């Protein structure tokens, strides 16, 4: 049965092109659908251009949601990338 799972994080840096790429590559490894939500904007985490189009910046809350058999693992992996890649100076 497909599970859904979500968790939020506050960005400590801007979501630039490189972290957006790393995030989309990581999201592609999961069979679950993965989305990112910032305010009223939502992006497909598997689409790098969609992720960049969020224009997410430091201090914003970003919600990672996944639906599918590996939803919890997918959310954990994306949160790790967001925490690492948007760290100040990364």
């Amino acid at each position: 049965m497909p599970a859904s799972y979500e968790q939020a994080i506050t960005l400590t840096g801007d979501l630039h092109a490189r972290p957006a790429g790393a995030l989309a590559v990581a999201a592609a490894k999961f069979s679950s659908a993965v989305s990112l939500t910032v305010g009223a904007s939502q992006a497909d985490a598997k689409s790098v251009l969609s992720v960049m189009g969020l224009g997410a910046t430091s201090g914003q809350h970003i919600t990672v949601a996944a639906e599918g058999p590996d939803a919890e693992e997918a959310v954990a992996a994306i949160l790790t990338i967001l925490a690492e890649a948007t760290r100040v100076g990364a």
Partner: protein
Amino acid sequence: MSPDPRVGIVLVSHSATLAEGAAELAAQISGGTVAIIPAGGTDGGELGTSAAKVQRAAKLADSGAGVVILPDLGSAVLTVRALLGEAGELPTPVELADAPFVEGVVAATVAAAGGADINAVLAAAEEARHARKL
């Protein structure tokens, strides 16, 4: 164990530096695991396109999972189409993407880095036309 082969990308531009720069950018964003081969300019180094350069690039880009070719404008499209029209000129499978050059190569390369097959890489490139920057 070596990872599964990735779809390769060829950038065909009138300008060698434009093709090289777009390849450099896409490699940075996608993490450097995908072959992105620029084929820009004429054989003499002028602005224009070269069938021979496209053929060499496609051969280099092919690691067994196929090649997606992104042209910039006009005769870049015609040069690739002429090669596609002759059997054996390009590796197979090969697809010509109808996509914006910069957004298309970034989307295609990230999809390829994630292990997408040639049809999914082509779709990612072509969906790039709908992506909003703002």
